[in-house]
């Protein structure tokens, strides 16, 4: 299905909440490298993705349980590698674990920001609240009034990142019982914060486009390949 280099790490999680938001495409355009192009939901409407994970104890051999928050812009995928559910250019990554942040920067070339100082996750109601030294970042919740069914699926994603002038690409697979929806409703609040640098998120027009949550109590797996040079 994909042509990756086979050099990957498996990350086990027991919580995932991902939300795609509609934002001004013009702002987002300036944040991605020229080799990539935004995938717009409609003319002038770009998409960002914010995903929160709770990784269980024992990742990389010895890491404690920790939470991660990752922000990406949705871009056109590299279809020569396969057909992903979505392709993302990673804009910011934060976590409650410094070792994880250091590893993400070195191994995955991800743009890390400072460590989270507070994080709360409600695994049953699918809700998160993350804060760092600069203040509140995001309070996000699932807005679907009813969850009909979780479907076990293996989703393929592509993650782009940048180092200097070079763009890198990783294949990422998520396996978990997932529920996906496009209900409109209250998904919480994104705050003006360096995590969202360059994107106006404190606006009532920043609406959710799509959400995905894992089944409470279920074990999920993220297989994240080491990035290779894209162009």
């Amino acid at each position, binding site marked *: *299905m994909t042509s990756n280099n086979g050099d990957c790490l498996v990350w086990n999680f027991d919580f995932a909440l991902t939300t795609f938001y509609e934002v001004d495409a013009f702002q987002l355009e300036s944040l991605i490298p020229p*080799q*990539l*192009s935004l*995938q717009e*939901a*409609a*003319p*002038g*409407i770009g998409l960002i993705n914010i995903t929160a994970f709770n990784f269980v104890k024992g990742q990389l051999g010895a890491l404690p349980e920790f939470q991660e928050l990752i922000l990406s812009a949705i*871009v*056109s*995928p*590299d*279809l*020569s590698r396969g*057909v*992903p*559910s979505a*392709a993302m250019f990673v804009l910011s990554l934060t976590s409650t674990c410094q070792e994880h942040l250091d590893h993400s920067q070195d191994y995955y070339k991800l743009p890390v920001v400072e460590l989270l100082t507070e994080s709360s996750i409600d695994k049953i109601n699918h809700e998160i609240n993350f804060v760092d030294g600069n203040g509140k970042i995001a309070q996000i919740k699932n807005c679907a009034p009813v969850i009909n069914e979780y479907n076990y699926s293996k989703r393929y994603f592509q993650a*782009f990142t940048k180092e200097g002038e070079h763009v890198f690409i990783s294949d990422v697979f998520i396996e978990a019982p997932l529920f*996906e*929806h*496009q209900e409109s409703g209250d998904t919480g609040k994104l705050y003006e914060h360096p995590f969202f640098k360059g994107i106006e998120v404190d606006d009532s027009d920043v609406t959710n486009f*799509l959400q995905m949550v894992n089944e409470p109590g279920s074990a999920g797996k993220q297989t994240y390949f080491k990035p290779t040079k*894209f*162009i």
Partner: protein
Amino acid sequence: MNEKDKLEDIFEYTLDMFLKSAGKDHAEITQFNRWRDAVVDANMYTFEVPHLHAQTPQVQVLRENGEILDLICFASYNYLGYSYHPEVIQSAKNALDIYGLGATGSPVLNGTFDIHNILEKKLSEFFKRESLGTSLFSSGYGANIGVVSAYCHKGDYVILDRSSHASLIDGAILSQANILMFKHNNVEHLEKVLNKIDYENSRILVCVEGVYSTDGNYGNLSEIVPVAKKYGATVLVDEAHSLLVAGPGGRGVAEECGVLDEVDMIIGTFSKSFGGVGGCLIADKELVNYINYYARSRMFSCAIDPGVTGGLIKSLELGSGPDGDQKREKIKENAKHLRSLLRDKVDIGTAHSWIIPVIYGEEKLTIPLSDYLQHHGLDISLMMFPAVPKNRSRIRAFVTSEHSPEQIEKGAHILLKAAKKFNFLLDD
């Protein structure tokens, strides 16, 4: 990966996934063809299927593997049955005999025939306003992209309903104006969007539709049109699915909502209730004169075929008279009949037009369900993400005035059988 897994993988794909690939090669073309070939190889390819005769309520189609299937047709926009009406065909034949096959030129240069002028005049008169004129286009898509891109320019604003047809969106992109969108049919959000711009000093075009074909619901014209006018905007209403069908005289949803006189531009399509092909703008004569020259999709396209034009004149004559009145009654009756057979058994939404959605949910059902419906005797249109929200994929039944009660009952029976097999019956 075994064959079954491979197929399930293919069923997960939606068309947006092949839109564009990053990188120098056009991998989207390779991947799209891989998907298409896999569906064809599985003998489940129901798209582009050739029909073997006119779009009557009973049709025959030829599948890729050579199978010929007899189907009840709920997939055609031939709402009033004019595409095969004997008088319409005769009128087209007469025009074909006189004018030949094609117009062979731009309408602004050599491509205009007197029957084009007759059709324009009759359409303007149909709307009963002295100041109106009509501009003809060779397609409905061409009408929208041509009109929007000629009327709006860099620095102007085009405000679109979020459920707008691709032709309006493409016209807005082509115009290079600022594009803003408001939530579907939501007048409060439209007002919020209008308030964000310097509306007193800006040129604004608000585009809405008479009937939105994804849900089959009416445009909220009675609220949207006055608000748009309050902010000094020009209002365009695309009556593609509603001209000759909605309104007491067939003048569309704007007529039915009582706002026809406030609408600045009416867009019509001839490929639906008229049973032919082409499109038109009905607007003030001065604007029409300008559009005739500056709508590039008109200026640089050949005029509508003369034979088709002859047929369209007859469709309009029939549709604006007693025949149209009867058919308008009948199509509503038929839609009501089909709804009554489906309501409470499957999710058909809340709209009340002649387009009836049947929501089956998951995208991955689209290909097997479409194949199942064809093999069980139904020609019908399916729609999935991104055209509609995730897990809200739907069958769309286009009811016509020409369906018999038996055809409607048989169609409903097949749909419910499919709903049972694919688990989208409401009581499941």
